[in-house]
Structure formats: C-alpha cells, structure tokens
C-alpha cells in the first residue's frame, strides 16, 4: 500500500507527453532492410505506432512495454504484397476504366488474419483485372481499427494490363431504355485491343485524348476525363505484361511519352534487363508456380516458355528494381514462399527480402511509410523463428502500426497444439542422436523425430540446445507423502495420485517425468506398482500405466522359506490359468440355442428380392479374389469310417470285421492365426468323446489345409482342400473334402462351412444379471482372483515382474522359477548379478541394482562398475530412487556411473528407454519416438556434460512451469 502511494506520488513528475504509447520489441536478429542493415540482439523502439529507433543498444524509456521474442526470433519489416486481388471483383465493362478506385473495392473493416499470419502487412490493391486500364491502384494495410487509416496511399498507380488476358475482351453494350422502334436495342460495341500494337495504340490515343482534353467515343463518355488528373499527378503506370515483346512495347511507349512504368508479371523480362534498368522501370515478378493444384502444361515446343525462377535474380543482378509477388491463385499469405522460390532461382536472401519489403514500397511511392524498419516508418513488422527466407521458418507474430495483429497459437484451447522442438542434439534415448535434430509434437504425442521434421500450420517452434526423453524413476516413492503399507492386488492405484503438487513440479524440473510408484513393504501376492507423471496438471495425463509392475521377493527371513512365496504364487498362477483355459475351451464348445430363423417367402416383396439378387450378382462380379481366411469358420459334416480289418485274412475265411462301417458326424471350428498357421477344435466321436484341439497350416491359394491334434489313440491328422476359396463363393455353402487319419482310422471326411465366424471368447465381465439368467448351459467362468489376474497379465507380458534377489544362488533359482512359466523378471537388489551375468542374458527383463554403483575390486585401483558390467553383458539396467523427492538424484547417479566407467549413451538409456522397457511402459514413454508421449527434457548441453542443466520440461506436450 505504501509503495503504491509512492508510485502515485511519482507519476506527476513525469512529463505530460508521456501519455504516448511506447513499445520496445526485442529479437535475436532484426533485418532493418534499409541499407542492408542487420542488428543482432537488437531492440526496435516504437512510439505511437511509429518506429523511433532500432539497434543493439537502444535506450528504452521506463514507460515502454517490452516484448522480447528471444534470441532465435528474427524480426523483419512487414511484407508488402506488390500485387493483390483483395479489391478486385468482376470485370469492369469497358476497356479503359480510369475512374475505378481500388479503395472502393477494399474492405477496410475486413479481418485479414490469414494473410497477416504470413507476415504480410500491406498490399497493393488492383481495382480490377484484365483491362487495358483497370483503374486506380492503392496501397493499404491489412489491419487497423480505423478503416480510413488503413489506406497508406491512394491512388498510387494507374493500373492496367496489355497481357493476353486483357486483350480480346468482350464488347461493351448498354441496353438503351426505353427500347423502341426508333431506338433500337443495338449491338455490343467492339472494344480494343486485340493485339499488343492495338493495346499500345489505345494507350497513345488515350494519352492524346488527355492532352487534347477530348473524350474519345470508343472508351466511353468519361474515360479521358477521369484519366487526365491521374496523368497530371504523374502516377506510375503499373501495367501487366508477361511476354518479352509486350514489355518491349511498353518500354517504347514509356520512353516516348515519358511515363513512369512498373511491369506487372514480367515472366519474359530477363532479356530486357539492361533496358529496364536504364529506363528505371521496376518489375513486379510473379513467381511462375501456383501451389495447391495440378501441374500446368506450358507446351512441348522448343520455344515454349517453361517456368523460369531465375528471372528475378537475373533482373536484380542487372540492377533492376524487382518486387516479388504471388501469382493469381497463390494465397497472399504465401508471399514469403514466393520469395523463397526466387532464391531458388539464384536470388540472394537479402535481395529476396528487399523484393517483398522495400522494393514494392518504393515502386508505389510509399517507402516513407512501409517497407523497412528505419526510424520514422510505421511499426509494421513480422517475427519469425528462423530466417524468414529459409524453408521452415515459422511465423510468431505480426504487428501493424505498433499493434499486435497476429500471434501464433493465440487460438482457443480446443485447437490442436503443435510444437516443433528444434535442438542442436536430439537424444532419442535408445542411443540414437540426431545432431541437429527436431521433434514434432502434436497434441502431446511425438509425431516425428529427425534432422528436420514437418512444420504443420500453426506450429510453434521452440529452440533449445539439447533434448532428451524425460527420465523414468524405475522405482520411486514420490507421491506417497510418507504413507506406509503395501496396496493389495487389484487396488486402484490411481486413487493415490493427486495433481498439482509443487514438489512434483520441482522434481519434474530436474528432468524426472515418470515415476513407477513403489510402496514400502512386501506383499505375499505381489505388490502392484503404478507408473505416472507426477507433475502432470490433470489426472487424465497423469497416469502412464495403472499397473506397470508387480513386485515380489525371493529371499525370506527364514532361509528354508527362500523362494516359497514366488513358487507358491507361480503354482497358483498355473492352476488359475488352467481354470480359465478350461473355461474358454468349454465356452468355445458351447452353442447358444438359436432362435428359429424367419424366412421371407419369395413374392412377399418381389422388388426387394430382385434387388437383392442383383446385389448378389454384383457382388459376385465384384469379388472373386481369393479369400485369405476361407478356412476360418465352423465346418459341419461327416467322416465315413471304413471297416477296419484285424489281422491277415486266412484263406477262405471272411476277414474279421472289427469295427463296422460307420458314418460319424464331424464338427470343426477353426480359425486362421497368422497365415499359414491355423488352430481350432474338432469334435468327432469316432476319435474321442472330448473336444480335440487341432493345429496346422492352411494354404490360402489352393485351399489345402492340414490340421493335427492329439486324441486317445494318439496323433491324428485331418487334411483336405476347400472347394471354393473365393471371397464371394459362387454357390455357398462352401465345403471341403479330405481325409481324417489317426489311430485306427483312415476316413474320407467332408464338411460344409456353416458359419464364417469363429467365436473368440472375450473374457466376460462379471455381471450379476447374467448369473440370474436362465440356465442355458453356458459355461460358468472361474472365480476371479485380483492377485492372480495381475499375474495373468504379467504372463502376457503386459506387466513387469520385479523380484528381489541378492545372492547368485537366489538369482539363478528365481530366474529359473519364472522361466518355467515364461516370465522374464526384473531383478531388484541383485548384488551378485554381475557375477552370474553370463547366465542371465535373455532370461531377465533387466536388473535394478542396489544403489552401490561401484564396488571395490581386489585392490584399490581396481573397481567394478556393476551397472556397466551388467550392461556390457547385454542385461539392461536402470536407475531408481526408492525415495520421494530424492528422485532428483537420478541424473547425478547416472553421472557418477559415467564417471566410473559407463558410457554416456548407456547411462542415458538406463535413465530413460531401458527403465521404460523394463517396466513394460516403453510403448508410452522412455524414448523420443513417433507415437510416444511427448515427455521431453530440454538441456543446456549434452546429458552428463558438467555444465548441462535442465532448461525446460514438457509433460505430454505441456510445459511444466
């Protein structure tokens, strides 16, 4: 309060004129353009919308608002579009329309945000197109609250064209009113010109008319009268001309009549460069390329003029004043791209920048207002990240008259957030480094990583020295806030999470973005661990994986019980798995009662039936390709079992028939796995009264398959060929014929496909209502066990298993036990892992070593870096904190590991991608790779460099602040 009062007292001492509005804009590079001046780390000082000073050491008044765009920003004068159709509408009626004013056609209230976004702040506006004289051109600004103030100058030019488009125009005809017998309705009045000579003659006639003060009938009643004051003012004649002969003709006219001339178009201007320079004639060169449409055929003849990007540079070299403009069809916002194309033709970046700023301003006589950043001019400028005439520069902001007119990313939050991180080094995390490199992040997900990534519209470019993936604390306590106790299996761990904690943010600012949240203590059925981003701003983006890992232990307090917990769990797990497998098996066998199908008699709806037939015909015609999955489905048929003969038939005796010839029903339910593998179930009472699992192969081309399985008689084989493998078979149902050989049987088997569906049983969710439903013979699912469910997921590799084991003996026993069920555990502790490293390779997911990185060897000068040792043996290691905010020590642990012999890239892997892989969250975090979450850390120098510090951190694409 006191300080406020003091401030109030201080105000009157300031002079009264301080009500002026001061703005100081800072940027790493400022291209003044005037005199080719460029200022590094400069300041542009603006007072009331006018540039007051520009330079490296500009004294900024205390009242000034300071806007700092940072060292990577490049500030250039607002671009001046040398040609635009903003004010042009339909064709005017006559050949010469000197009375048309472009300012009438320009909507000075319009919002030209899209054009401003391209850095264009002013534009020359043509009143019309394709007429010998289109009217009076003007230069306007594209932003500003006062519509009157948007006009920079009007008129600035007599706008016209002698190019092909302007010749051969329609006749002019005004219907006389009333049309009577006396006053015929007449016919269109032919209009000049059709040829270049006609066009030049028309100009001469008009100029003669002006000189003589006489209206000329063919040009309408007022053309000369309207043209005269314009000629008197000595306005520039800005005439469209493309071909060399047109330009030459205009040059001749200008010389003869003493006209100030600007050529618009100028495709064929290069051969006349010298004449143009001597005559002081400027050229508005329209780049001969229009994006967003198909290519244009320009003729195959030897003299056909193909797009020539070198014209602008050839003219500039000769000293001709050249402006670069967008051709009709190209968005005005792409003016910068047009200038970049001119560079492709050999123009220097400085010349190309002049050609879209100062040159057009001078051509139209408005260089006192716009076109450069010299003091005294309007504060119209554009800010880019990167040099604007290099490809891939991104617009940050555009100012007009000292006011912000466009700002990138100023849209509402609903918009897609696109960020390009541009770095000297991009450490992907798996050992790959892009130097330099870029990362494209869209809506929190990494979309592209490489030396140069895409720049979608609206992208915000951030320059940083080095980026790496966020660090993963493979086992930490951050967020427990001192809570003890181990959560039960099945506990919703997300309930522990709480966004918005300041400590979390501080930890994240050290680069730790993901924590696999452990808990103190052990659980007999395995303690669940959640992976989450502590500093994330909301719950949705906080969770990385609600169940990342299960932690158990091998050694026990009582040595006799070592491993009991794990072995017991695994035994239980096997049974649990079997009970589920059995359930699925039964479920596959079970057929729900099918309601009687309802038939529609033909004739009920004849048209429909016909239509359907036609439809079917069409389908047949359309699709007789081979169906790659023709085998999949349910096949019902039978196999004829031949009477088997026991023993050699004695002479004269009838052979003893052991089994009579029987026809047995056969039901095969099969599906194609990854071709050509197929599997399914066979029911055939001739072989077994159980459902038999079959596996085999299928050849999609020929339709031949071979399936085999086990039955009480041993192995059997069912082989056959499907008779129609087309996608749309000619005559369904499709069948197969083959043989069933197994045990005592060798039977001809045939079946028809009754269904294309192979019912894959989804695990049903417990549903009370279903239990109450009528007993339809549907198999009941086994009782759920939350502890075992999590282990089942571990079996499928979705959840990591961490097991504590220390001694070599324990380690090997533990690994073997898990191996028996197909789990690769993460060993935790594992003090002697490096001793048995050679036996662990490929059998463990990784090792979370005790924090003792370096252990002494036999003598003082031999020490062992256990982390490096294991990693060298091909076993991933990771750093973990087992602490809350202590997670910030992880980078230092890794630095120490590097100091004691680990490679920096291996240490980085251990901090990021290996930790993520171990915890089975590598599909979400751990690397800078397409599809992964944009958890990114920006560093001032390479990781593990002594001077390296964390500059910025992004979590799921959002910066942590």
């Amino acid at each position: 309060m006191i300080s406020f009062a003091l401030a109030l007292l201080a105000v009157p001492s300031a002079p009264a004129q301080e009500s002026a509005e001061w703005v100081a804009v800072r940027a790493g590079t400022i291209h003044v353009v005037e005199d080719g001046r460029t200022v590094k780390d400069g300041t542009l000082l603006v007072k009331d919308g006018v540039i007051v000073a520009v330079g490296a050491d500009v004294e900024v008044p205390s009242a000034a608002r300071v806007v700092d765009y940072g060292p990577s920003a490049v500030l250039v004068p607002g671009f001046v579009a040398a040609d635009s159709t903003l004010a042009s509408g339909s064709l005017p009626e006559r050949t010469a329309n000197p009375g048309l004013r472009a300012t009438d056609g320009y909507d000075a209230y319009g919002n030209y945000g899209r054009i401003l976004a391209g850095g264009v702040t002013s534009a020359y506006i043509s009143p019309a197109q394709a007429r010998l004289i289109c009217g009076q051109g003007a230069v306007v600004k594209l932003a500003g609250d006062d519509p009157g103030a948007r006009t920079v100058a009007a008129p600035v030019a007599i706008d016209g064209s002698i190019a092909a488009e302007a010749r051969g125009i329609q006749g002019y005809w005004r219907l006389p009113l009333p049309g009577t017998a006396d006053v015929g309705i007449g016919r269109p009045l032919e209009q000049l010109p059709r040829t270049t000579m006609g066009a030049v003659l028309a100009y001469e006639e008009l100029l003669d008319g002006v000189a003589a003060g006489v209206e000329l009938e063919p040009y309408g009643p007022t053309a000369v009268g309207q043209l005269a004051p314009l000629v008197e003012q000595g306005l520039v004649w800005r005439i469209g001309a493309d071909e060399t002969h047109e330009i030459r003709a205009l040059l001749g006219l200008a010389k003869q009549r003493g006209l100030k001339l600007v050529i618009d178009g100028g495709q064929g201007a290069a051969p006349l460069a010298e004449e143009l320079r001597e005559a002081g004639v400027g050229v508005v060169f329209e780049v001969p390329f229009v994006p967003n449409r198909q290519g244009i055929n320009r003729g195959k003849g030897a003299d056909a003029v193909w797009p020539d990007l070198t014209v602008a540079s050839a003219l500039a070299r000769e000293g001709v004043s050249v402006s670069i403009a967008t051709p009709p069809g190209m968005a005005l916002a792409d003016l910068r791209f047009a200038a970049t194309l001119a560079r492709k033709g050999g123009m220097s970046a400085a010349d190309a920048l002049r050609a879209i700023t100062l040159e057009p301003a001078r051509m139209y006589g408005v260089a006192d207002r716009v076109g450069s950043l010299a003091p005294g001019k309007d504060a119209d400028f554009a800010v880019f990240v990167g040099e604007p005439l290099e490809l891939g520069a991104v617009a940050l902001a555009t100012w007009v008259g000292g006011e912000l007119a466009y700002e990138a990313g100023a849209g509402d939050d609903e918009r897609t957030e696109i960020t390009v991180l541009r770095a000297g080094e991009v450490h992907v995390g798996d050992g790959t480094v892009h130097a330099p490199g870029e990362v494209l992040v869209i809506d929190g997900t990494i979309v592209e990583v490489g030396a140069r990534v895409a720049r979608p519209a609206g992208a915000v470019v951030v320059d940083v020295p080095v980026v790496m993936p966020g660090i993963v604390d493979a086992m930490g306590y951050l967020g427990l806030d001192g809570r003890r106790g181990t959560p039960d299996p099945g506990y919703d761990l997300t309930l522990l999470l709480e966004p918005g904690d300041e400590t979390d943010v501080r930890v994240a600012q050290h680069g730790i973005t993901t924590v696999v949240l452990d808990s103190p203590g052990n659980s007999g059925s395995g303690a669940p661990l959640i992976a989450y981003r502590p500093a994330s701003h909301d719950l949705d983006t906080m969770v990385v994986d609600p169940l990342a890992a299960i932690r158990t232990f091998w050694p026990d307090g009582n040595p006799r019980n070592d491993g009991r917990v794990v072995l017991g769990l695994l035994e239980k797990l096997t049974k649990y798995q079997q009970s589920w497998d059995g359930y699925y098996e039964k479920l596959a066998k079970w057929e729900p009662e099918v309601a009687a199908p309802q038939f529609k008699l033909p004739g009920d709806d004849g048209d429909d039936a016909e239509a359907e037939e036609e439809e079917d015909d069409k389908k047949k015609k359309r699709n007789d390709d081979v169906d790659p999955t023709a085998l999949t489905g349910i096949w019902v048929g039978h196999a004829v079992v031949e009477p088997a003969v026991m023993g050699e038939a004695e002479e004269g005796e009838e052979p003893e028939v052991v089994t009579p010839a029987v026809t047995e029903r056969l039901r095969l339910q099969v599906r194609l796995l990854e071709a050509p593998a197929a599997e399914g179930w066979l029911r055939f009472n001739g072989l077994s009264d159980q459902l038999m699992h079959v596996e085999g192969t299928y050849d999609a081309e020929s339709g031949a398959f071979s399936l085999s399985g086990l039955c009480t008689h041993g192995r059997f084989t069912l082989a056959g060929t499907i008779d129609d493998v087309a996608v749309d078979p000619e005559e369904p149902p499709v069948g197969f014929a083959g043989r069933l050989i197994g045990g005592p049987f060798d039977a001809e088997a045939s079946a028809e496909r009754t269904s294309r569906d192979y019912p894959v049983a989804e695990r049903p969710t417990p549903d009370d209502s279903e239990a109450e439903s009528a007993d339809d013979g549907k198999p009941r699912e086994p009782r759920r066990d939350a502890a075992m469910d999590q282990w089942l997921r571990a079996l499928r590799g979705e959840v990591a298993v961490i097991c504590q084991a220390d001694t070599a003996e324990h380690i090997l026993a533990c690994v073997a036990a898990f191996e028996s069920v197909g789990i690769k555990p993460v060993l935790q502790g594992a003090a002697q892992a490096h001793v048995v490293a050679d036996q662990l390779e490929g059998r463990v997911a990784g090792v979370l070593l005790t924090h003792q990185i370096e252990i002494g060897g036999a003598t003082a000068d031999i020490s062992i870096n256990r982390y490096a040792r294991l990693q060298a043996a091909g076993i991933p290691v990771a750093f973990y904190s087992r602490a809350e905010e202590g997670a910030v020590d992880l980078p230092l642990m890794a630095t120490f590991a590097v100091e004691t012999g680990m490679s920096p890239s291996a240490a980085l892997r251990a901090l990021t991608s290996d930790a993520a892989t171990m915890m089975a969250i590598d599909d979400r975090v751990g690397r800078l790779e397409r599809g992964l979450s944009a958890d990114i850390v920006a560093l001032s120098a390479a990781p593990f460099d002594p001077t390296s510090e964390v500059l910025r951190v992004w979590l799921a694409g959002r910066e942590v602040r």
Partner: protein
Amino acid sequence: MLTLEPIRLKDAVRACALGAALVAAPNALAQSSDSLVIEAGRIVVDSQNEIEDGVLLIEGGRIAAVGKRGEVEVPWDAQVMGGPDFTAFPGFVEAYSARGMDRANERIDVAPFLDVRDAIDPINVYFQDCLRWGITTVNVQQGPDCVIGGRGRLVKPVGITIDEMTVRPGFGLVMSAAPKSGKSRATQAGAMRETFAELHRYLESIVQDAKDGGDFARREALAQGRELDGDKAEGRPFQSAANWSIDGLELIPRGAIDEQKEPLLDLVEGRVPAFFHCAGPHDVHLAIETAKDNGFLERTTLVLQPACWKAAGVIAEAGVPVIHTGSMIHTETDPVTGEETETFVLEVYRDKGITFALSSQNTSTASLWYQAARAVGHGLTRAQAIDAVTVAPANALGMGDHLGSLNAGRLANVVLLSGDPLATTTMVEHVFVEGAHAYDRSKDPRNRILFEGADPLDNLRSDG
C-alpha cells in the same frame, strides 16, 4: 379468443353492412359514419404514454382525441368498438419492404424511372399478412440488387387497387452501396459516381444548349409525347446541397428534363427520400459519401445488414437514421483463432445515438412485434424497442406527424391487441387503418382454415 362484444358487433354489421371479406369490406364502415370510438382497457399512445381504460375518438380517418374514458367527449351517434380486454397500439410501420410485388428487382443498374406502382400486387398475400401482424403502413421499395432502383410507394395494406392502397406515391428512391450481382465493389462505386456525373453532364449540356439558344430538351420532351403545362412549363434554379451545381437550370422547363434523369434531379434537390442499402460497413462509407456529395444526406435513410454495425461511428457522425434488416445478432468468426464473436447490433446503434427502425422485410425474421420483443430480450429497454417499430420508422419515412403514435391528429391506424404488445401470447385481434375496420381475427378465413380445419372453398363462399 377475444371478440368484440356481440351486440355492438351486430350493430356494426347492420349499420354498415360489414362484410367479412378481409380487405374489401371495411371501407363501407368508414364512409357510413363520421366518427368512431375505440375503447380499450389500455391505450399505448407511444412508448412514453399509456392510458388505462381509455377511448380513442376517430373522425375522418384521423385520431380526433385520446384520453381516459369519460374525459373524452364522445359524440352520441358514434360507432363504439373495442372493449376493456383490448390493448390499443399504434399500427406498426414497416419502414422498408421489397415485398408485395411480383418481383423485387429490375436488372438494369440505374433505373430511377421505374416505379413500384407498376409492380405492387394488391392481392398479394403479403398485404394480408401485414394486417395479421398489425402492420398498417408499408414502405414498398425495390430490392437491393441495383445501383439506383425505382421509386417506391408508401401504402396501407388495404384496398383492391393501388390507388386505394397508396398513402404517398412516388415515395423515395432505392440505392445500393452493396455490389449488385455481377458487379464488384469498385465497379458498383464507379457506376454510382458515374450516374451522378452523368446527371451533371446532362444538365450542363441542356443548359448549355439553352444558353446557346437551343431548344433541345423541350423538343425531345414533346417528341416523347410529354405535355409541358402548369408547373412543368416553368424552370426553377438548381437548389441542392450537392458539392456541384448548375447555373441556369431555370432556363429549362422542369417538364422538359429527361424522364430518366428527372427522379435523380428530384433526389439531388432533396425532394424525395433515399433508401440506401448497405451490406457491410464498407458500403456505409460509399453511401454516405454519395449522399453527401450529391446533397441528399438530409433525406437519406440507410437500410443496413447486420455487419454494418462496425461503421456505427460513421453513421452517427453523418446523423442519418437507419433501418435494420436481418438478424439482430451479428456473428463473426476470427479466421485465425476460430473464435466466434456475437454483437447485438441494435445496442451499438443505441449507444452511438443512431435512430434505428426495425423491419421485417427479411423473410427469415418474424414480424415487428416479435423483433421488438426479442430486442428487449437482448437488452433494449421497452420504450426503445417500441419506438423502433412505431415512431422511429415513421420518422425515418418523414411521416412522424401522421404515423407511429396514437396522439390526436395522427392517422387512425390502430391495432387492438389481446394483451401486452411485446408478449409472445398476444394476438392482433382488430386492425383499423385510417379509421376503417380492416381486420378481425375472429373472421380471418385463414385462421378458420388453420384452427377449425374448415374447407377453404366453403369458407370463402359462406363468407361471401
């Protein structure tokens, strides 16, 4: 549904043989009795004055007196209509409408010699609808697809000939600052300026001809079959606030001025009001510039689309009234951020002190009372909203002394409503146009078709 009290109605029917045909019948009433008394539970004289339990005394088609019952002296033989359940309201004034004609626009750019008289269709359903909505005066003008359009006409929606309907003939001239189809903004502006430049040239040339002793204008007029007598035989000097002038126009008999040019001369000399269309704020600049340069700013009314609110500063400075058409809410989308901004246009006009009238000419917007009610919903006061459909359009038409309120001396255009004029449940029960009973909702054949499902043909037959 409210109806007139039965006995009185019967009297009225007997006395004046009131047919129920919607439009044609009521004239008989007006002729049969000199004075009519309308009683109402509430009389909304204008936005400021209301009278509870009042009477309106109507004589000769105009309001002779208005006041509380008992305070107004009522002739003993006057017809008495209305009743305590009604609210009397000034007939709504439609300040601008391009409807009621066979077609709204002509194809010619500049056609001031046209007259909507030749296009108005008295049996157009539009006029029937006007009565249903309580609109008693309509300014019928050409549509906006022109540079300079034909002459309009102020009509009442009653009568079977155009002459019967006419309130003011040759009323106003339509102009458009928004580009006509096929024109760009620049060519529209060019054509606009050229039209007046041409008028100037034409007048100069005939004056010069006369000064040179020629007789071109007169001869041409006679050749075209025009008679130069009375006023038309006399010349008058050019009198205009335009920034150009003609010396010696008095040499030319006014009747000799080319028919195609004459309406423009009337405009420039301030004899007819101008209705200037603007589609966007930029058009407003052209409209005001044209009106100022050619001396008819005083008589200009802008007919505005919603986007024009941005030019409110310019409009306020020029001091011209406006007629708002289209939506009251102007919505804009920022091309960069995609952000939508909504502006309640009338509030901007109000805050700038611009006189604005509402109009229902746009078919997508409902009638005047509904618009007024909506405007209140968006933040106008009740008085402002009522003014915008009564006094403001009347003043914009220069008819403030005749229309727009129920004060004594005004034309007896009275609407009897079933309730508050701005309530959505209110119905127009009776309409009196210049003292004639023009509409009775209980007899509206269309309502009977709608509500009673009566066969339209039968209905029309029995109602005679």
